[in-house]
C-alpha cells in the first residue's frame, strides 16, 4: 500500500468508521432534505426520521 492510499484509507476509517451504510444514509438524507426544501415544502422532518431509521438499522446489523 502506498503512503497516499494508506492516508486515504486512514481518513476514510476516521470519518466513516466501521459502518459505511450509515454514512451513505446521512448523505442521502441531507440530499433529500435539500430536494424537499427546494420544492418549497417544509423539510425539517426528513432528518429526524432518517436518523431514527439509520440508527435502528445500524444497531440491528451490529447485534446480529
Amino acid at each position: 500500500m502506498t503512503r497516499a492510499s494508506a492516508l486515504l484509507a486512514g481518513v476514510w476509517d476516521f470519518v466513516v468508521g466501521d459502518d459505511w451504510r450509515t454514512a451513505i444514509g446521512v448523505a442521502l438524507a441531507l440530499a433529500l432534505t435539500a430536494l424537499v426544501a427546494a420544492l418549497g415544502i417544509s423539510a425539517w422532518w426528513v432528518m429526524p426520521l432518517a436518523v431514527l431509521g439509520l440508527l435502528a438499522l445500524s444497531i440491528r446489523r451490529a447485534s446480529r
Partner: protein
Amino acid sequence: MSGAELGLALSVFLACTVEAVEALTIVLAVGSTRSWSSAISGVGAAVLALAVIVAALGPAITSLPIDVLRVLVGGLLLIFGLQWLRKAILRASGLKAKHDESQIYEVQAAAARGAGAKHDGFDGYAFTIAFKGVLLEGLEVAFIVLTFGANQHRVALAAAAAGLAVLVVVAAGVAARAPLARVPENTLKFAVGVMLSSFGMFWGAEGAGARWPGGDGALLAIIPGVLIAAVALVKVIQRAPHPTMTETNDQATVNA
C-alpha cells in the same frame, strides 16, 4: 452564554473528557513501566501536532459559506455522533463489552514490559506509544472542536472547553496515580453521541435548506428526542434474545 454555546461547550467538554481518560491510561501504562520523560515527550509532541492541525484547518473551515459549512459540519457530526451512539447503545444493552480502563492499563503495561530492553536515556517505545495514543484520541476531539466551533464561530470557546477537560482529567490522574476506572465512560459516550447526533441533525438540515419550527429552540426538542429514541433502542435490545457479546474486552480497547 446562549443555549447553543452552552451545548457546544458541554459537548466538547464531555467528548474530550472521554478521550483524555483513554489517552491517560495509555500514557500511565508506558510511563510507569518504561520511561516517564519519554512518555511525556510523546504527549507533548502529539499535543503540538494537534495544535498545528487545528490552526491549519480552522481558518479553512471557517472561510466556507455558512450553508456549505452547516451541511458539511452537520453531516460529519451526525456520522460521528451515530457511531458514538451505536457503540454506547450496544454497551448499555450488554451486546458489547464495556470499556474497562484498569484492564486496558494491564494490557498496555504488559505489552510495554515485553517490548524489549529499556534504555537509560530516550525510550523510543514509550515516546511512540504515548504519541500515537494521544494523537489518535485527540484527533476526534480536534475534529469536534473545529466543527462545533467553526459553525458557531466560537473555536476559542470549544478549544477552552477541551483544554479544561484535559486539565480536569490530568489532575484527577495525578491525584489517583492510576487509570480513571471509575469515570462512567459509557454514560459519557452516550451523552456525547446524543449531543453530536442532535447538533449534526439540526445544522445539517438547516444547511440543506430546512427551517426548524421554533428556530434554535427546536434543539430543546431534538436533544431529548434523540435521547429517548436511544434509550428506547437499549430497552428493545435488552428484551430481545441475543447470543453473545460482539467483541471481547481486548478487542474493545482497540475499537472504542
